[in-house]
């Protein structure tokens, strides 16, 4: 009704390229992803977009994946903003401020003909709070308007000599326009206080800073403090006048800037030096150069700063220690992430582990996604992770030994993201001898089960059910095997074949098994409906006999399923805890398959519960099981006697 075009893009590069609509038309666009990984993927389009400049507001909303809970390498988006001259907003993590800055971000983009990045830290992305809303307004200019009146402008194209002029325009026109907008619209905030020292903080860190000041009794819980604070809701470009005004007449300022290198601190020193202002600038000398700035870290830094300037105490520059010493007899056990209960990737990795025992270890290149957990216990395979879909490509150089072929992993999400071209097609083109396993769980599972082209569901407005196998064959792979990952015997046989065959071209195995989280979400309500309707429903769950489990835990070392755990032994002669299957078991059957495939142990059993059984089935069971029960109770009585 508001005529907003929405797309779930194939990749960040696709999303960024969509913003090209804002180059020639006064159309607003916003795209979002996790940074810096997504920004890396999008950087080609972003750099070109920034050079061309935009007519319509272009907003790039980024989840800055830095610090606790981050799942990527630790870098700053700030460097990207600087290298392409895209403006960077870093609002206070308060809903009203965020909402205002989104609106102002579009306006800034239009006022300065420059795309704008808006970054949100991890917790701010998952925040519950409140703000006053405004009415929705339809866009003034839509895609239909643009298509009805197509425009082009050679000066916006990324070809010389336009590119040289675009760089000049960035510096001479767009930058000053941005500075003017930021000043006039007070994007950055000056919070007053009586002390003649000050704090300069990235907007996103304001709340933690404010809380640290409250805990240090230099402020309250409403953002007030006796220390003046300059809040940078826009961290790039910086406004030299504002720095000068804030720092002039102050004894010292502390810059709280997360991540490295210290771009803002370097800039501040330059501004003050050029303006002949002698205020001392502190930052990374009192705060750590690298790592997340938690409230604890910030409190530690501010305390040293205030001790020195306000309390006249000698500054105790010690390193911040985030964890207390608990003086336990052993370290607190770590709890790394792992695959979910019943995950279809577990039997695949267990098969790989067993094949490695049989044929010797292989080099394994891992990938992004759930399948990256292959690198963690209990599987402990996988030597590198290079990027979403780059599992195949990261084995490319390790080619040429027929006896020790490298194995590459790739999720189905990564496959469609770029793995089909960067990994599979590349291997076909260069006639690699390696083995690539595409883990086909039917969803972009690690991010919450979004659909991808090969998803099997029925979601209406998207084109799904595309075949990975056909795509692989289509780019010229002749050795392709489709396997069901839960069938470990087949999986191991195909892995063995791929690693030992005389065929010297690229080998691709597609390991299918639906993401169990999504599967349970799908079938649970279905099964209870069928049960209630009186239909035959078979449910399975696994168990372990405590008296034949010897407590050696080899099953756990091959599976690592969360539902396969240990419990104290009730046998005084065997004090080691025994394995057991807890209530969360979804009956995927991997325990039994692992026990079979690895010749592990006969302690596993399966309970098959048949709801609403057929009459013949009931009769047969009544006879066969009835006799067994009779024999059992007879033995039981004679033993007791």
């Amino acid at each position: 009704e508001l005529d907003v075009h929405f797309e779930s893009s194939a990749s960040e590069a696709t999303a960024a390229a969509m913003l090209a609509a804002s180059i020639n038309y006064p159309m607003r666009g916003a795209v979002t992803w996790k940074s810096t990984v997504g920004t890396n993927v999008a950087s080609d389009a972003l750099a070109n977009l920034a050079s061309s400049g935009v007519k319509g507001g272009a907003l790039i909303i980024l989840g800055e994946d830095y610090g606790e809970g981050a799942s990527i390498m630790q870098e700053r988006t700030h460097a990207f903003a600087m290298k392409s001259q895209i403006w960077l907003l870093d609002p206070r993590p308060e809903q009203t401020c965020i909402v205002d800055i989104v609106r102002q971000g579009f306006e800034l983009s239009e006022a300065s003909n420059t795309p704008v990045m808006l970054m949100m830290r991890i917790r701010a992305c998952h925040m519950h709070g409140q703000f006053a809303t405004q009415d929705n307004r339809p866009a003034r200019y839509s895609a239909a308007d643009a298509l009805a009146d197509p425009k082009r402008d050679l000066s916006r194209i990324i070809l010389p000599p336009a590119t040289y002029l675009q760089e000049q325009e960035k510096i001479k026109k767009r930058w000053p326009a941005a500075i003017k907008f930021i000043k006039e619209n007070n994007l950055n905030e000056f919070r007053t206080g009586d002390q003649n020292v000050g704090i300069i903080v990235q907007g996103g860190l304001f709340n933690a800073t404010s809380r640290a000041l409250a805990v240090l009794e230099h402020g309250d819980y409403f953002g007030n403090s006796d220390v003046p604070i300059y809040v940078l809701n826009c961290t790039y470009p910086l406004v030299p006048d504002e720095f000068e005004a804030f720092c002039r007449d102050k004894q010292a300022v502390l810059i709280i800037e997360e991540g490295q290198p210290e771009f803002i601190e370097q800039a501040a020193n330059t501004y003050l030096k050029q303006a002949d202002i002698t205020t001392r600038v502190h930052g990374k000398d009192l705060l750590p150069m690298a790592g997340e700035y938690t409230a604890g870290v910030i409190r530690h830094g501010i305390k040293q700063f205030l001790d020195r300037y306000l309390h006249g105490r000698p500054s105790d520059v010690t390193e911040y220690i985030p964890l207390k010493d608990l003086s336990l007899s052993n370290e607190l056990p770590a709890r790394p992430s792992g695959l979910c209960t019943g995950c279809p990737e577990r039997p695949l990795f267990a098969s790989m582990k067993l094949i490695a025992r049989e044929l010797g270890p292989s080099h394994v290149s891992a990938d992004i996604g759930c399948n990256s957990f292959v690198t963690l216990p209990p599987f402990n395979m996988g030597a590198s992770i290079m990027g979403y879909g780059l599992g195949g490509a990261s084995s490319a150089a390790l080619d040429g030994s027929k006896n020790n072929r490298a194995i590459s992993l790739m999720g189905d999400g990564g496959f469609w993201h770029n793995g089909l071209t960067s990994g599979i097609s590349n291997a076909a083109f260069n006639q690699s001898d390696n083995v690539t396993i595409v883990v086909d769980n039917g969803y972009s599972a690690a991010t919450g089960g979004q659909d991808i082209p090969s998803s099997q569901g029925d979601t209406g407005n998207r084109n799904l059910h595309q075949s990975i196998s056909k795509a692989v064959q289509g780019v010229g792979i002749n050795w392709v095997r489709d396997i069901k990952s839960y069938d470990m015997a087949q999986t191991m046989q195909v892995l063995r074949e791929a690693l030992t065959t005389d065929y010297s071209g690229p080998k691709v195995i597609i390991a299918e098994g639906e993401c169990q989280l999504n599967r349970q979400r799908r079938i649970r309500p279905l099964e209870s409906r069928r049960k209630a309707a009186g239909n035959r429903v078979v449910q399975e769950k696994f168990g372990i006999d405590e008296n034949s489990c010897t407590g050696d835990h080899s099953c756990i070392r091959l599976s690592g399923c969360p539902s396969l755990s240990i419990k104290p032994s009730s046998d005084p002669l065997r004090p080691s805890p025994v394995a057991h299957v807890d209530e969360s078991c979804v009956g995927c059957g991997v325990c039994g398959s692992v026990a079979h495939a690895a010749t592990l142990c006969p302690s596993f059993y399966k309970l098959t519960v048949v709801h609403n059984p057929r009459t013949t089935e009931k009769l047969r069971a009544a006879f066969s099981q009835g006799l067994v029960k009779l024999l059992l109770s007879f033995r039981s009585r004679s033993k007791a006697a």
Partner: protein
Amino acid sequence: MTETARPITLTIAALGGQGGGVVQEWMVAIARKSGYRVQATSVPGVAQRTGATIYYLEFYPADTPQDPVMALMPVAENCDLVIASELVEAARMVQRGFVSPKLTTLVTSSHRNYTIDEKSHLADGRADSPELMELVSNSAQKLIMFDMEAVAEAHNSVISAAMLGGICAANVLPFPSEFYESAIREGGRGVDASLAAFFGARDAVRNPELEPEAFLEPLHPETSMLPDPVARIVGEALPRLRDYQDNRYAQEYLDMLQPFLAYSNNHYALAAEVARGLAVWMTFEDTIRIASLKTHPDRLLKLLQQESELTHVVEYMKPRVEELAGTLPAPVGRWLQSSTLAHAILRPLTRGLTLRSSGLPGYTLLRLLAGFRIIRRTTLRFKQEMAAIKNWLELMQKLANTDEALALEIAKCQELVTGYGETRERGQSNFNQITSQVDVLLTRADAAGVVRQLRAAAQQEETGQELAAAMSEQGLVITHG
């Protein structure tokens, strides 16, 4: 600064998949209904897949004149209420400084959800729970501890509902109890079970149950002649040996144990350990034993009575040729192992069997196999194990006179010989590796300590790398074969 100007803060420590996010949603609803402003944050993503994760909430009365600035993460020494769904996670909250002895009420579950490293250990790699409990109780201003998992299971619900009950019963937050109930009702999924677990948890906090006293079995008359620590173990061992083979076998056990009763140091530690290890070793799990355990009336009847619906019990077994040959008389077994023809014939059996022990054919087959007990003494496996046991006992007897501590460590090495198939073979080879070093070790001062280290290394991981590393650190040479 007045006390009311501070927000009330709640930190929730949970494991991915436990529903910490659901507890957070409930708390947001409860706070809003109670007229409070609330900000809630979390760290989702990869950390949530079974990893440890925390949720953080701040509450403020809605009528504060100014907008509060809320922190996005807990600040050390500044949490009013911390709730942990698991004991190690509670300790982690202490480690991160969120639990203050001046301020914090800590509500934690007493149960353990073992980490992958604890589970993967070859014997017992668990963290010391009593030590963790002592730590958490010394760290909080007030501690409330109960088994949230047991409460959840007792009410057929999930741990998140029990956590909410714990939060309510802690009486730290200013929200009326009925709003907790309505939050669960309005959540709309599994309402009845969640409410039951919620009330169950509240009751568990209000009327804590006393731990049951450890109950000591009365001593069996036939063990009354033995010193106390040994008698308890022998009392367990004798029925097991009779069930495993026969009365004569139990008598043989006592005879083999006899020489070790001469060593009374450290409350008969050596005799007790030999009694334990010998009983376990002598009841080694051959196919006959497995068939007997699988068809034990107590087991099968219990499994079949668990569900009211039609239930089948399916056993997973995969004997190797070694196991099959081991079940036959020694000469036949030896021929079988070396004959390629026999291998070919047996191959279908070694591909992995699934047997329905709750049905007549499967049950009968297993009972037949269990009946092989009458020829067990002649089987290949029996002879092999008996020879190994004999060597072990002789080694210990030889050592006991000169270095009783070393003999005790060798006795404990029985723990290495465990598991099935290749696992047991690897264990046996580690055992051999360590026991074959005894002659070299006798020349050293702390031989017992070295054996203890080597054993711990062998139990650390299964490939033997740790053991090899520990041996070379001690300057010992790895023997092959």
